[in-house]
């Protein structure tokens, strides 16, 4: 199994982490929400897999394209 980094789709603040490290998730499941332009923008699983790591904390500022999670 290869590890893949999941990028933030948007510049903003990490609002809420919804998934737990170690969890097995389906494609499209939401890992966390990024707050941007007063909206909660989901960071979704690009494919089914296991959430290996979350690379940011709630309230962290993230840039568009920055890796925020690792999946396997």
């Amino acid at each position, binding site marked *: 199994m290869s590890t893949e980094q999941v990028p933030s*789709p*948007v*510049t*903003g603040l990490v609002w809420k982490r919804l998934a737990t490290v170690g969890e097995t998730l389906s494609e499209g499941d939401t890992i966390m929400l990024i*707050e*941007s*332009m*007063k*909206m*909660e*923008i*989901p960071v979704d699983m690009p494919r089914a897999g296991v959430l290996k790591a979350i690379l940011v904390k709630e309230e962290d500022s993230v*840039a*568009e394209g920055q890796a925020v999670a690792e999946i396997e």
Partner: protein
Amino acid sequence: MKMSDNPAMAELETRRAAAREMGGAEAVAKWHEKGRMTARERIAAFVDPDSFHELGMLTGKGRYTAEGHLIDFTPASSVMGQGNVEGRTLMVVADDFTLRGGSSEGAVSDKWIYAERMALEFRMPLVRFVDSVGGSVKILEQAGRTKIPGYALWPSTALMGSVPVASIAFGACVGLGAVRAIGAHFSVMVKGQAQVFAAGPPVVKQGLGHDVDKEELGGHELCTRVSGAILNAADTEQDALAQVRRFLSYLPANAWEAPARVASGDDPRRRAPALNTLVPDNPRRVYHARKIVDAVCDQGSLFELAPGFGGSLRTYLARLDGHAVGVMLGDPAVMGGALTRAAAQKMERFVDLCDSFHLPIVNLVDQPGAMIGLDAERAGTLLAAAKAGAAIEQASVPWVSIVIRRAFGLAGSMLGPWNGPNGTSLNHRFAWPSARWGSIPIEGGVAAAYKREIEAAPDPLARRAELEAYYHRLSSPFRTAEAFGVVDIIEPADTRALLCRWARDASRLVQTQLGPKRRTLR
């Protein structure tokens, strides 16, 4: 008498046969090994069967004996002519890479420029199959001189206001090849095999010392997602051809004609009850905006342009009760729906396309405003937004807007033409009950206007929430409707019925507005 009994007729057939051979059996076999179609195969796969009428087949270079007898003939690396697509005639011009890399030289440019001029003069769509690495220094030797770059008689810009132009990047498209691929109303590139750039990796290495591979420098990821130079990506050559056929199906043959209506089996009054609960009550929650256009447009009629670029704005060619229309849709799941530089550039281009070819525009608005922040300011978001706004104001094609959720600020004001080029645009606008609008959003606006009062309150957060709740009640769309600030607030389920009725009226109106559009400076 058989053809071969007449020497001139036999020579004609010999030369035609050589043209059909292109770069020769070996070069064609190598090309097929790469999984690619030749220029002639691409044309055959694109046009209706047996409809291709080739022009300029005898252009090329003959070799002769000292006595002046033909030894052999090498055709020009460009195949062009007329063909039909869905029964409608158009010009198609294809670079032949099996000959000197499809390089642009000598009579080759005369030939493809002729195709473009013929499309302009006869008011037919133009389709370019680009697979060209640009100029070669070897041409200098043949000509014995250099030239100031450029092509007299190439009507590149005039074409864009007159006839639909579509291009497919099939391979590396460099310099002029890149311009021919990019300068079109619809452009598509084949993933993994097409790259579009000003200059390839060796020139970049020499000029800048950077090591970069061609896919990174001009592949589909960059062109269709980052720069927006090419609108769509295709998985295969066949997919690219199908996308161009699909694109052309919505457009008239030229700016003097109206788009054709097709038969639709979809009930124009079909209700879509799922839309009534699509937009979440919590204003911070996103929703699947695509479900709106899926439910509203004729089934199977959506064709998305530039899906990977400026995704906070989605742009579609579509049909409403068989009438071709352009649809813009705000997507809150991408960048919160903000008007980014990319989205603004995409909007400007899309509005120009629809206005030029008489496709009435449906704008489904969820617009929080132009993207904010240092990156957005540096990117020139405001300039791009202003130009998109100008394109809307210059559009004279029928227009209807439905505010789905938000319409805020400068970008929110760009929901349709306020005056239009003739000063008479109706600004026909509707809203769903979930809509909210204003010059600035309540949350930030309250914090700014009541800064001192909130800070002085015993419980600043509670005071702010109280003020925000008060202003939210004031911002009910029904209060705007009382003042006729919106024509009507509709049940989302009935959106299709409203739009289909409008599309019929709009389609009748464009019949009276045909011809090329003139636009002022923007």
